[in-house]
């Protein structure tokens, strides 16, 4: 209950932040402008509309997740409100979990809003509702959940600026999963070891990229639903690992 109360308070706090709302408005505007690529052939136009819509959701989600994730704990420390909270019967792990959940609720609300606009624009443009695209939006949300957990973990010991670069940098490295995957079979043993380490230890954000399948229906994978479930489980377990580490670090931190 305490965790949920902190999460609720965090969500309300986040939704009041103008920067996040501005990001949301810009993203929604860009998605709504998608059909302006209609001068291409129908097939190209559809591919561009779908890829741009998913890209805008991802980019906006990325900024919203990082901006909220890097600030939730340091801001409380900076404003000294954390002393008020922790002086009450609130465990530190409850505080960390509450902040994480609050941030994720925020991201959920934002991505859901963008997703609704995107799917509506697509349905209007293509004269039918494509439920497949929902999978892309869902996977983006879980990708952001993992990123949010990463940002929360870093926020327990790093300043917001350092955290921003750490989270963003790891997001980029984690997106190069196709590169690290190909390097795993490299002839050079040192490269192989490094590639394995990066591929299996660093959060693999590239896993969540289902765009090829969603944009081009002809791309087939053996079992798309299993793939999606695997990714959701991956995000949940990896987020749990990061939150455990965040709790352990925050527990030792002097505040």
């Amino acid at each position: 209950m305490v965790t949920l109360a902190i999460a609720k308070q965090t969500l309300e706090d986040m939704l009041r932040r103008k920067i996040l709302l501005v990001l949301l408005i810009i993203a929604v505007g860009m998605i709504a402008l998608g059909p302006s690529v209609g001068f291409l052939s129908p097939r190209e136009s559809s591919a561009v509309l779908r890829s741009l819509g998913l890209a805008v959701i991802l980019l906006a989600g990325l900024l919203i997740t990082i901006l909220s994730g890097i600030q939730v704990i340091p801001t409380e420390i900076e404003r000294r409100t954390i002393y008020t909270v922790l002086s009450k019967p609130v465990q530190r792990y409850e505080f960390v979990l509450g902040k994480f959940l609050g941030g994720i609720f925020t991201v959920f609300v934002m991505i859901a809003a963008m997703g609704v606009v995107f799917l509506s624009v697509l349905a209007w443009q293509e004269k039918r509702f494509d439920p497949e695209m929902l999978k892309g939006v869902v996977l983006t949300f879980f990708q952001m959940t993992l990123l949010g957990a990463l940002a929360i973990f870093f926020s327990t010991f790093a300043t917001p600026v350092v955290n921003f670069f750490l989270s963003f940098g790891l997001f980029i490295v984690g997106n190069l999963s196709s590169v690290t995957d190909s390097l795993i079979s490299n002839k050079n043993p040192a490269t192989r070891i490094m590639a394995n380490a990066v591929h299996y230890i660093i959060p693999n954000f590239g896993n969540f990229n289902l765009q090829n399948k969603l944009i081009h229906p002809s791309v087939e994978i053996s079992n798309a639903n299993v793939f999606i479930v695997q990714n959701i489980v991956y995000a949940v377990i990896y987020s749990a690992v990061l939150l455990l580490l965040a709790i352990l670090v925050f527990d030792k931190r002097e505040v």
Partner: protein
Amino acid sequence: MKASTRRNLGLAVIPLLIATMFLQAAIDPSVREINKGQKTAFQGLSGEFVLGPLLGLQQAVAGLLWVRADEFFHSGDYDAILPIVRMVTWLDPHQLDVYITGAWHLAYNFTDSSERSDRRYIPASQRLLEEGDANNPEIYDIAFELGWQNSDKIKDFARAEYWYRKASGRHGADERGQAKAPVPMFVWHQLAHSLARLGRLEESVDVWKKALSMSEDFVKKNPTDFSRRNVRDSEVHNLELTQKRIFSRYKHELDWEVDAKVGKGVNRETGEPLSRDTYVFVTGSEVSQKAAAYAKAGLSAPAMAVGLPRPPAIEPMWNTAFDVRPVFTAPKVLEVKGRFNVGDGARVTVRLHDDTYRNAQLKEFSFDINQDQTLMLDQHSVRAGTFGRKVDMSKDPKMYSFKGDTYYLVFEFNPRATSPFIHDRFGWSGEGMTDPKYLWTDSSLQPDVRWVRKVYRITRDQVFGASIPESAVVSNEEYARMMAEPMTTK
């Protein structure tokens, strides 16, 4: 937090991390399937476009790049489009239209000042399409495009048939997500046309029958689909026309004018008009004309009388009396004067190339072509038994560098690439034509095809104005043997 709790939490991290590793290993095969054919995130990308792929937005960057390419296209800046095509296909190997448009630019839009295509780009164009087809092996689009390019541009009907057949075994994909839609009927139609071009007429007829059967089934189930009914009607027309042509060219010549006026049907198995009077002679003068043709060929005419079927259209053998004299009136300016005893509208192909040039088969796609190589191809129409015009290559030194020492100058007529009204006289494979000097029978693909071809082997000095003697003519067999050899580079 108690120390034991902290320890337990710390220990819990380890199995969870191991679980993520196993999950990652399970996820990897699916990710590989999704990204098949896609190059690494930022290969070949300029700085402004690197960030998107780093964030996993390859498809979005590819889309934006293609929007930019469209702007270049409308401003006529074709050179700028090709690097974008390369990048887009690397980022998103499922953009079928990008492969097709890029290949079209390469094969058709690089031209000299007289609008002749730079055919040195054709292998690159083909390779780009082959790469796209390999990345989209279930979809018909790119295989169809390969068939079309081989048929329309290269006139290699065997390759065209190969790709059309592949395309016909695929399925369609469109922007509405109908990934398993059947291929459009025009794929089958083109397969039938390519088989006819190859002289494989029975197979062509079989494909028309199959296409017609598919359309009839479809129309039965969807009687209000008027578009498909039109397609079915066109298949009826093409099937009957092909059968009538086979009948007229190889069995009994039809009087097309009378047949068209009467508008009778045709026996779809034999090609014979349902009304017999549509293919018999209608006047005595036609019998005389036919008899005169036999006499001209030095043959005795078969028994013909008004009211009886006439002999097939390809008889008697027609002497094309082909010959040509090339002269370079100025450096790199070729003047062609030839005679060719065929109907107006037939086209003679004029080709000039390095003696080392062969049809390249690229292993990897590349825009880079051998700029030192010269390859010119022109088509000259026959009018009143003559052909020829000036071919000025002096204004385009990049296309026609003439850096080699020796060249082949080829004048040829391929009956399979010509128009139906010429086929009406010669047949699909040139069965009805002969030539005392330059007839060459190509037996590499069955049935045999009879070409008319005259080949000169000339020197660089001759390209720059020295006269070309008739002793420079080489045999067709020698030229064919040489062209079959692998490409050598200087």
